[in-house]
């Protein structure tokens, strides 16, 4: 039963404070949905969870063990889907995905998982198509297929539903449900409603230093 939690997280972008004193826990099979107005730090929090952005204060821990001590181990546990869909125009879809799969997961049964990932997101027919011919929606699906192609317990999805049609959003929802059923965790930031089963909501506006004055009475300096 792994749990992923953070306490007292503080995010500093340049000289401005984005949020502080943010706590959360995601149990196995859990789903944390980040909501809040633009600029409240949803993307920053996801990047912090992925280890791209070091928290100015506070700690992230996996099963109680601070994540900062073993960054590579933490990276092996997660998939991060950001705003960019990095599909190389010269490489085919299969080459793109197999590169990321080899980087993340063990080599065994890579071919089978790759095929399954392509099927799950209706990309099988694009398998050998070079990236430059793909539309924005297709690139987004290839990016999401990357997450399926190599197993990782923690999914960090930054607005996965952008540029996707209704059918694709449905496929993403099923993929997430299957992932959670298998004991995986998901942290999603989204504007459209993907309506996941019993998500725990986290409204970042409560922790945002900018939009509301200090959330807790007598907010002391973080020692």
């Amino acid at each position, binding site marked *: 039963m792994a749990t992923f939690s953070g306490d007292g997280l*503080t995010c*500093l972008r*340049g*000289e*401005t*404070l984005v949020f502080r004193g943010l706590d959360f826990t995601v149990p196995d099979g859990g789903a944390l949905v980040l909501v809040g*107005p633009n*600029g409240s730090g949803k993307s920053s929090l996801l990047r912090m969870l992925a280890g791209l952005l070091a928290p*100015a*204060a506070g700690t992230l821990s996996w099963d109680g063990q601070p994540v900062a001590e073993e960054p590579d181990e933490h990276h092996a546990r997660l998939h991060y889907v950001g705003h960019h869909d990095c599909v190389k125009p010269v490489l085919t879809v299969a080459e793109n995905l197999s590169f990321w799969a080899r980087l993340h997961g063990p080599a065994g049964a890579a071919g089978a998982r790759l095929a399954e990932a392509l099927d799950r997101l209706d990309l099988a027919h694009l398998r050998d198509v070079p990236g430059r011919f793909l539309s924005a929606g297709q690139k987004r699906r290839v990016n999401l297929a990357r997450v399926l192609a190599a197993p990782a317990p923690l999914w960090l999805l930054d607005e996965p539903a952008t540029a996707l049609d209704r059918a694709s959003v449905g496929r993403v929802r099923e993929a997430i449900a299957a992932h959670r059923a298998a004991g995986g965790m998901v942290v999603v930031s989204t504007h459209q409603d993907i309506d996941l089963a019993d998500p725990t909501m986290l409204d970042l506006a409560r922790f945002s230093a*900018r*939009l*509301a*004055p200090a959330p807790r009475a007598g907010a002391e*300096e*973080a*020692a």
Partner: protein
Amino acid sequence: MLRYANPNRFMRLARVLTPWSAGLAVLLTAAGLWFALVDSPPDYQQGETVRIMYVHVPAAWMSLFCYVVMAVSAGVGVIWKHPVADVAAKASAPVGAAFTVITLISGAFWGKPMWGAWWVWDARLTAELVLLFLYLGYIALIHAFDDPARGLKAGAVLALVGVINVPIIKFSVDWWNTLHQPASVVKMGGPSIDGSMLVPLLLMALAFKAYYIYVLLVKMRAEITAGKVRALRLRQVHGTA
């Protein structure tokens, strides 16, 4: 201990120290100029041009000193993430560059009467020229980003890489110079510094250091205040929704 970029302790200290450091700088400069220009004998070999040495040599020391201070504060900024350290690095870069320019110009004005040429590819002058470009590279890098904090952090990495390269550059330029050195060139430093030259040299060096501290305090206070202005403007823009 995290202080969100509000180095107030430093600002209060700097505000108190600034007038004193200004006074010290003026005093030392006056004393230095007096001994350098008036109260010291002309050199038996170089004649009155030795007085150029009293600017050239201390400035050369300062150009290296400022770069080392820049690299050390950049290192402190990177390791302990202390905002004041990054600001110190940014503040000392232009001063260091100024001293390097002074060293090069005074070197040229010394070379013209002694060797008949404004510029000679002498080991020390060449190394100083490369140091100037290390400074210009740092200054260009920190101003190349929209977010000043991002520029400072990138500059810190460059300063640390640069400080490792300074001895390597010095070594290779010296070696290169000995290979291509025409025999007749008088060593840049001239004869060993004898007693009478020591007093003006040291006084000018101290004057430059006092000046450096004074300008550093002023520039750092300006940079930190600018940070606060940016923060307030951002708060004004985003404001309470």
